[in-house]
């Protein structure tokens, strides 16, 4: 009548190092395909808004400042995003990619989660306009 069948495992563990990862003092390597925070390259964007249409969480919003001259600002809510990667898949010009380094996305306030991506002058224009209007003005949405 065998009892204590796990004895060999237990005795071996007495002399092994525990398998627990001592995060945050020790950070293991993350895999290359990890879906971390989203990043947008404004130079190649044509404003098709396929990424905005298919986002399951409504985390993306493309604000069109000038369609002909391709001046867009992408507003990304990192707290609404579910990191699924559908937007990356949809973009035909490879403007979007998910980082595998920025994945520790905890913060004590909501500020860092609302990210405005774009050329610096475009973002500045948008922020000035918002400040002038006194509140977040209506933006173009599809």
């Amino acid at each position: 009548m065998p009892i204590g069948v796990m004895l060999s495992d237990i005795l071996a563990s007495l002399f092994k190092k525990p398998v627990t990862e001592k995060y945050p003092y020790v950070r293991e390597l993350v895999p290359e395909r990890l879906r971390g925070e989203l990043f947008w390259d404004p130079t190649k964007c044509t404003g098709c808004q396929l990424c905005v249409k298919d986002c399951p969480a409504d985390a993306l919003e493309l604000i069109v400042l000038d369609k002909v001259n391709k001046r867009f600002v992408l507003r990304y809510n990192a707290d609404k995003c579910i990191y699924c990667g559908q937007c990356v898949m949809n973009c035909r010009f490879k403007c979007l990619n998910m980082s595998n380094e920025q994945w520790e996305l905890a913060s004590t306030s909501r500020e860092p989660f609302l990210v405005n991506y774009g050329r610096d002058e475009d973002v500045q224009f948008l922020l000035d306009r918002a400040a002038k209007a006194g509140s977040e003005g209506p933006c173009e949405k599809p």
Partner: protein
Amino acid sequence: MNLTIPPLIALLFFPGGIFLLGSGLLYEYVDRKLVAQFQNRIGPRWFQPLADILKLLAKEEVTPEGVNPQLFVALPVVALAAALTAALYVPMFGFQATFTFRGDLVVTLYLLSMMTLCIGLAGANSIDRFSIIGATRTLTQLFSYEAPFLLALLGPAIVASTWQIGDINQYAMTHTWLIVTQPIGFIVAVIGLMGKLELPPFDAPEAETEIVSGALTEYSGRGLALFRIGKDVELVIGLTLVVAFYLGGLGNPWVFLLKTLVLLLITAGLQSLFARLRIDQTVGMWWRIGALVALVQLLAVIIGLFIGRIF
């Protein structure tokens, strides 16, 4: 070792009282750390048991409806008092027992059982389903392992022909280790100790996944802290007793530390090796196998002594 300490100091500070509470927390830490090591993980840090107790003492104590409030508050205190009193008769930390008298083995065992009885009463006090079932299981387990455990501790008492723990300790120090001459008794004593302390696999009375916390479900704050400290102290005393009887007695503090920690290692290994036994399986095992084996050991001891006396 013989140390003359004034009785009040012994009772309150050393080797009983505060020092005993501290060592209880230390032994709990070592036990949890060893079980974690057996399970290939990091256990808690050294101050975890202390932090638990302090946190519990700081929390609000909620007296539930339907209990007898005086009994509710008094039971943890009585349990801890019983455990601390039992320490006075045992050779704690390698020093000779502060108070000894003839027959103090029975008194010590009775005081340790009183602690379990208090837990059972605390469970029966509430009207919560889980507490009642937990109390039933605690008392059932108390009745089942008590007899074999006592028989296992009786073996050394018979060969030393005395009921005084101090004298049995003396006998164990001077003769060959009783684990060699009474191995079955040692096994029954260790497993009985695990049953007494409600360590897995005998933790059906406080099975977390079935009846939340068993008899102590309704306790919080100070009451729970006192019960937990009482259990830790019982751990230390139980280990001391078994070591003093079977593992060659306790002469000085270093020997005490070494031997009790070795026994704790064995106990932690046994804790992580088995699945939890159902309460009916525990009772069946104890009354069928445990009691019989302990009786066989006792008979062997008596016959051995008889033969020894003839020649």
